[in-house]
């Protein structure tokens, strides 16, 4: 069982509500769910869609073929009719769309009229549509009714009942009228967790003891701020919407200097404004975590779409030479753990640490049995309380064997905490002399880097251990690449190497991934960008050059069939 449902329509028609609700019904039913969204940078109108895949086996990418299309506008039919699978079905409301379709795969469901009739309001048309989809799939309404009850608890029993009636009417209509419907989705099992990357990043921060988040709203990072805000009181987190991204990173640095774990989040354009602050974090050795949500650029680009275009930007930007950690999770679970690792390394080595994601990942939802809190590491690396008070002397930037100086809280003891954006001495005061400069660079950069490198995990090898064909990627392509390996490994000796810990570039001593690459007949680097930034990085760091690259830079994510086709095309030429 592997079905895809697409809800298409204009912004403001409630596409996301329908999509989120269906995804929740399926995950509570114990099915595996993957969803992604595609929308324009506007609040009303245009064309948007929400796509959900459900299966009894893990799914982690969207497919091209659609089994049920919920068309809330005419455009949805024009654009997506051709995506319909062999036994697929389009449901629409002919009276709302003011057009009637006669082909056998169209089913006219009077969403609005049924809503009026059974819910006493046209507003419930979307509830009717959800009921209809569930009916087509042969699902009961118990789970959906439960969700209705939770959603409208505050609005009272009447509204709840009206919605339940509307859902029933939709389901009943579909069961009775959808004669071609032959979907069969199997029995319900234990509910699964349904989570997106944005929430996972925020939860990772909360689980890491993040106490301060300052940001300026920018798609696709705004959700992190919103989720943290919703938990700010409960978790005692200060979440501040700054006047601009420059203020956002500087506030977070102030908070970190004062003694709490601090984070900021943004997208490319906002991050461009933060760059001087990034360099400040490096010079003052102030820990900070930066969530960077990529979207197509240059400049404003395609604000609501996806791209892996900022890897080298995050890696190389900011004046001067200093260490930084860069993580690029491939899914929400990995995001949760890697945000924690980012906080840990940022504080342990007093460096900036990045979590790179993108629009596609930000707007996708995945199902899991559970997240393992046992994997969360929470060590307080700061010097505070009695340990600080009892010191005979303290120097904020003291030279040490590891290059890491004790990080004390200002104001907690008689010891002064002094730091500077100018080059400074061990105490933190401005210097000009060459000798101190060299020692500081050695401390900040070279000494620390030796240790940071040891912390970075090698890429994940998925598939056969000595493959003829290796597909290589980083970050958000994890799911679609993994499914492509599953599909192709039936008759190909294929594997995936996925990098989610990118800088410092992984060493080969724990796992010699370079041998895997060199031994393969073909290594293909797959990236959602135009120039193959990771491929360039791989060559710069290891000397390995990809002969084959698959790049997609239309602002849209890879879809499964499309990626398999492209890989197949390259393998065919072997």
């Amino acid at each position, binding site marked *: 069982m592997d079905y895809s449902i697409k809800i298409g329509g204009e912004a403001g028609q409630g596409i996301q509500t329908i999509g989120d609700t269906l995804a929740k019904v399926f995950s509570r039913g114990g099915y595996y769910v993957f969803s992604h969204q595609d929308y324009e940078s506007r609040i009303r109108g245009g064309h948007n869609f929400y796509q959900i895949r459900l299966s009894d086996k893990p799914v982690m990418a969207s497919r091209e073929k659609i089994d049920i299309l919920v068309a809330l506008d005419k455009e949805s039919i024009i654009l997506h009719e051709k995506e319909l699978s062999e036994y697929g079905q389009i449901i629409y409301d002919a009276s709302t769309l003011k057009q009637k379709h006669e082909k056998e795969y169209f089913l006219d469901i009077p969403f609005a009229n049924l809503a009026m009739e059974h819910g006493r309001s046209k507003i419930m048309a979307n509830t009717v549509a959800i009921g209809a989809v569930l009916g087509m799939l042969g699902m009961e309404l118990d789970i959906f009714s439960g969700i209705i009850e939770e959603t409208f608890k505050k609005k009272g029993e009447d509204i709840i009942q009206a919605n339940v009636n509307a859902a029933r009417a939709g389901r009943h209509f579909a069961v009775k009228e959808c004669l071609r419907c032959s979907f069969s989705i199997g029995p319900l099992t234990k509910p699964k967790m349904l989570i997106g990357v944005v929430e996972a990043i925020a939860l990772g921060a909360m689980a890491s003891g993040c106490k301060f988040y300052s940001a300026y709203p920018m798609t696709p990072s705004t959700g992190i701020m919103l989720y943290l805000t919703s938990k700010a009181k409960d978790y005692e987190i200060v979440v501040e919407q700054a006047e601009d991204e420059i*203020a956002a990173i500087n506030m977070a640095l102030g908070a970190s200097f004062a003694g709490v774990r601090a984070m900021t989040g943004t997208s490319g354009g906002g991050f461009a404004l933060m760059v001087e602050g990034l360099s400040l974090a490096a010079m003052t050795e102030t820990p900070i975590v930066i969530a960077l949500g990529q979207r197509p650029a240059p400049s404003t680009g395609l604000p609501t779409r996806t791209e892996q275009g900022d890897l080298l930007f995050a890696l190389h930007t900011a004046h001067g030479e200093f260490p930084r950690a860069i993580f690029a999770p491939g899914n929400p679970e990995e995001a949760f753990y890697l945000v924690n690792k980012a906080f840990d390394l940022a504080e342990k080595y007093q460096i900036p640490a990045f979590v790179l994601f993108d629009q596609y990942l930000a707007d996708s939802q995945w199902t899991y049995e559970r997240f393992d809190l046992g994997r969360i590491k929470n060590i307080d690396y700061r010097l505070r309380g009695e340990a600080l008070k009892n010191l005979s002397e303290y120097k904020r930037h003291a030279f040490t064997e590891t290059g890491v100086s004790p990080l004390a809280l200002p104001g907690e003891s008689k010891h002064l905490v002094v730091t500077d954006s100018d080059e400074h001495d061990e105490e933190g005061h401005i210097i000009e002399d060459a000798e101190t400069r060299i020692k500081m660079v050695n401390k900040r950069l070279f000494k620390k880097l030796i240790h940071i490198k040891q912390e970075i995990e090698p890429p994940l090898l998925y598939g056969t251990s000595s493959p003829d064909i290796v597909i290589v990627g980083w970050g958000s392509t994890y799911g679609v690449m993994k499914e492509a390996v599953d599909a192709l490994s039936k008759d190909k000796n294929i594997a995936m190497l996925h990098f989610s810990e990118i800088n410092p570039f992984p060493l080969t001593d724990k796992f010699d991934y370079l041998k895997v690459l060199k031994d393969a007949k073909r290594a293909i680097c797959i990236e959602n960008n135009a120039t193959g930034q990771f491929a360039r990085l791989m060559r710069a760091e290891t000397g390995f050059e990809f002969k084959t690259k698959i790049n997609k830079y239309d602002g849209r994510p890879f879809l499964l069939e499309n990626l398999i086709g492209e890989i197949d095309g390259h393998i065919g030429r072997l």
Partner: protein
Amino acid sequence: MATLEDYKGQTPAWCPGCGNYGILNVFKEALMELDIEPHQFTIVSGIGQAGKFPHYLRCNTFNGLHGRTLPVATGIRLSNHGMLVIAVAGDGDCYGEGGNHLIHAMRRNINVKLFVHDNQIYGLTKGQASPTSMEGMVTKAQPSGAFPEQLNPIALAVALDCSFVARGFAGDIEHLKRLIKEAINHKGFSLVDIFQPCVTFNKINTYEWYRQRVYHIEPEYNPEDKIEAFKRALEWGDRIPAGVIYRNHRPIFEEKIPAIKKSVLIKQSFDNSKIDSTLKEFY
């Protein structure tokens, strides 16, 4: 109780005769008289001659980027609102590069004390016009004279309902000391704009120029009258007022934030166990 010696920092690298010396000396006296020890406060500074100020004292110091003192100071205050946080900046730093942050710090009313060393010129970069340079001031970068109208930081602050607005003069140190102490004691964002003659690059706004014009606001003046404050804020030319020009008692930003109602952020212990129940919301 600290002595003046306790605040003695590095040897200043300012030009001989610089107005900053007067500010530095009186600042130490004010802190000593208020019984605030070096470890009990943090100074955030930026870039410019004023940016070096905290190094010439003994105190917790974050000498950050040009123009970005106030966001850093805000972050520190929100994480540790038990500590006095002072921002020191120049006119280029605070009114030019960091103008946006000044506006929003005043709006928030974060309880930070901002002292602007206003010499009406760029000193560190050797004599270009600053936002407070008088219209027509000729410099190497403005050979036909500065074209823009001079920024009036006092009027800007009054317009934005800044909680405490004062003007001092580095050549009038006893008066300046009173202002520094009042600003530190005031609850709310405080701006003290300090005329600080640049003896090297500003040949117009000299000690003498200020002495001829700056007058003390009379004791019966009510700084809580906003209309009167505007009148004083707009005075410029032959007579320039010094003293507390405007004051209000707006609630401070820190008191509005739920996360720090019970205790200071840095003192809060971290409890990981809640995450488990939060994760359940995703089923």
